């Protein structure tokens, strides 16, 4: 039975149809498997091979992956929420109520979006602390650290802009306080305040502006920065795993454990 399925699958993968869509063709050779990743427009940012040690839970606690995961959840729930939400002053609050009471699974969508946003911020900070305390910012990974900080800022801005969208008292006053802080910047503070709100008070312009920021500008920025972040991980030698990290490339690097690569089993056998 099993072989039947696998032979049929092989036949499918050898067919012309499959090859017209998936150009790399079928096969289990290393070449085929790496081509399946490298020739795919969506997947080719990822490396075709990863070091087994980088898959350790201890190394990263998967925090970065989870942050990306929550980001994907936010994008999907956010797009679904966009079907019901109008960023206009007479409608915003009532749309939020409609989502809560009338839309099928609307309450779930909104709550998931909200909780994922909090989780993403938490995970981003945890990822930051992990990277810092493990020393994964050290050369050659300095620039990736900077990109990560910018990503953190983008995450916080996404949170801040999204907070205004329900247009309730909490939203209104939180954004009023935050934008008033921005006006304390010397020389350009007032201008920043006006630019942010599209006016002097939080009003319809502010709502629209924040909506565009939250749904278009900041997510695009986030996606681009995530792409850079992943690309740099690849180019900097993969994820940093301290115990088994090979000797640093640069001369200034302090000596790490000058050992060859260990196998996974050897790693796991350690206490």
């Amino acid at each position, binding site marked *: 039975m099993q072989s039947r399925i696998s032979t049929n699958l092989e036949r499918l993968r050898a067919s012309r149809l499959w090859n017209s869509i998936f150009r790399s063709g079928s096969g289990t050779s290393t070449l085929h498997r790496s081509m399946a990743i490298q020739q795919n427009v969506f997947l080719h940012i990822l490396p075709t091979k990863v070091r087994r040690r980088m898959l350790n839970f201890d190394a990263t606690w998967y925090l970065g992956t989870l942050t990306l995961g929550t980001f994907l959840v936010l994008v999907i729930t956010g797009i679904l929420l966009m079907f019901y939400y109008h960023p206009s002053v007479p409608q915003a609050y009532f749309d939020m109520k409609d989502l809560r009471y009338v839309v099928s699974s609307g*309450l779930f969508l909104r709550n998931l979006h909200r909780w994922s946003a909090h989780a993403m911020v938490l995970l981003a900070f945890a990822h930051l602390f992990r990277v810092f305390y493990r020393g994964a910012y050290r050369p050659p990974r300095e620039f990736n650290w900077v990109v990560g900080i910018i990503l953190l800022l983008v995450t916080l801005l996404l949170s801040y802009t999204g907070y205004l969208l329900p247009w309730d008292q909490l939203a209104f006053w939180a954004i009023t306080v935050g934008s008033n802080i921005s006006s304390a910047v010397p020389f350009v503070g007032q201008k920043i305040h006006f630019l942010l709100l599209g006016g002097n008070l939080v009003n319809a312009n502010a709502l629209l502006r924040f909506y565009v920021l939250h749904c278009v500008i900041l997510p695009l920025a986030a996606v681009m920065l995530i792409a850079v972040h992943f690309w740099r991980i690849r180019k900097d030698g993969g994820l940093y795993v301290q115990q088994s990290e090979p000797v640093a490339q640069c001369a200034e690097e302090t000596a790490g454990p000058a050992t060859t690569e260990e196998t996974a089993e050897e790693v796991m056998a350690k206490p």
Partner: protein
Amino acid sequence: MRTLKNCWNSWRRLFGDPIRAFGITSVLLLIALAIAPAKDHFSEWRHYQHGYLKLIQSRRDAPVLERHFQAGIHQIWLPKLGVVDRCETCHVGLTETSLGDVRMEPYSRHPAIPHSMQQFGCVVCHRGQGAATTVAAAHDSTLAPNEPILPARYDEAACGQCHHADLEGTPTLNQGRELLARYGCVRCHTIKLPDGSAMQPTDAPPPLTHIADKTTREWIYAWLKDPASYAASATMPNFLLSDQEARDISAFLMANSVPKPGDTASLKATSATNADPAAGASLYGESFCASCHAMQNAAGNLVGGDLGPELTAVGTKVKPEWLTAWLRDPRNYDAGTAMPHYRFTDAQLGLLSGFLESKTNSDLLANVHLDPATPEQIAHGKQLVEVYGCAACHAIRGVPKPDNYGPDLSRVGSKPLAQLVFTAGMPRTLPTYLSNKIEHPRIFGPGLHMPQFTFTPAQVDALTTALLSLTDRSYTLPAKMQIAAVGQSSYTPAGKAGELMTDLNCMACHRINGHGGDMAPDLSWEGSAVQRQWLDAFLKNPNTLRPALIRRMPRFNLTDQERTELTNYIMTVYQNPKIDRDAMPQSGYSAEMVEHGRQLFYGKYACQSCHIVDPVQDRGYIGPTLTDVGSRLNAEWIYLWLKNPQQLRPGTIEPNRGMSDDDARALTAFLTMQKGAGSRKSGAGVASLRTSGTKGVGQ
């Protein structure tokens, strides 16, 4: 310990391998994702709709009800009113007439109201969060811009948002509005209506400019400490003053008073002492003072009207000299008083003053002993008068009327909860706050000055209802939905007769051209209605027209010249331009017509159920007696009245019979023959007609 190790081992087997852990968590996530659609399906409102279907299955008209039923969320959407109401999702049977006997909520039918739900939705009247589809969120939500559901006892407040004139079906609201005006609430708290006008008070707090001429400092002290101890029906509330405060305020008021010449009068001693003790009481009765003033009778019941102050203990209050001067000419002391100017002789003044001065309450001032006031006390008293806002109601020399003494109540029905104070244990809703504030104004904190009124629970409910009707929604609903209050015009009669009418204060009781009271008939068309000689005789000696009423027009003892002046004015000026007085002849009808009219009176129309024509046989006394209507009313008026009474006097309870012209003419002929004792042409045949008439034999 062993089981713990086993648990740990199985956990390790499941989650140890990251790939397998991922697989398992993915499966768990998918299961968790299914929770949301499941919760969505088993929602609260679906449960109630199922309950409704179960309920109607056992009813006789189940097929019809099932056909009307639609599953899913129901919504009333009125964008112009900003209404999105989903109440019908759970309250499914609201419009089904056959569900009138269902008591189980939420399936009972909505009671019949003059508006359709599709026209207004639910939230406009009942408040609550209409957009919600869960019970708690719909009923209890206090989140802005919504309010929690209004308790059913205050339902009439919703009508008051548009209907600013009184409605027949909203007695609580009407009473509340009347109380707001009558107890002077609007003197401290401005209440503006959506059309820009302000609610006017209907009480009459007297000016205190010359108070020392009228009464004593001891009485003022006792009154300030507790108005109800002097007069149970007083509209002045209790300011909960301490002894010292009352002492100081009374000192200030007495010191601040200026004497007015003509405020005191003394009579010759003989006229007072030779009086027959009962003569005073009978003069009081003949003058019909009780039409406006109340007095407690021996049984302790309050008898009389409420236009003027209660006189149960007036002898303890006023000085005899002042009383005599007042009765002689009230306008001298208070130009704006509603008291008419009777033309009493000195003898009568003596009798009346003596009678009223005998009405005392000796307990009232028994324990009041005040030392002469010091300047500090007087100054402190003035301060207190300003603090307590006395000048908001009373005219006090040197103290201006305070602006915005109490908070503006024009939109108090929409006051956000965040702006209200509650005491411990008080339910945090707006109606609770309002009713507690009305009952115990000062419990909400120190330094509050609102006085204590004594209202019954029904009155408190009425006041709360009236206040809850003053909402923001009155202003946001389209202006054409507002029905304005029927206000008073500012008509005043002109000329010499006008002066007389002001002096006699006719409009305290009568309404003329939209201005005046409603105790007595509207005189706007009196000239078209009555005959001159009757009016003249009536003003000389007002007799009873409606035996069932206790209030009567007083006799003012007018001179002939004054009377003629008034009669001329009324007959000439107060005419309805559409009525031709001479269209129907006043006399000269044929005997057949008169007879026909009598038969109609007693037979077809059975008027004797309410009117008396023959004082021996007829007994119905709802309407005025018609024994001499032929010398009282104009024939054309009688004719028009019979055709359509409500057109001549809106709101009269005489039924509109839709009479044909011939019937009306015949009845007019019959009635114009009724000129009192000497002219009854009934003769024989009345008795037989009487018995046949009552069996409902039509003509």
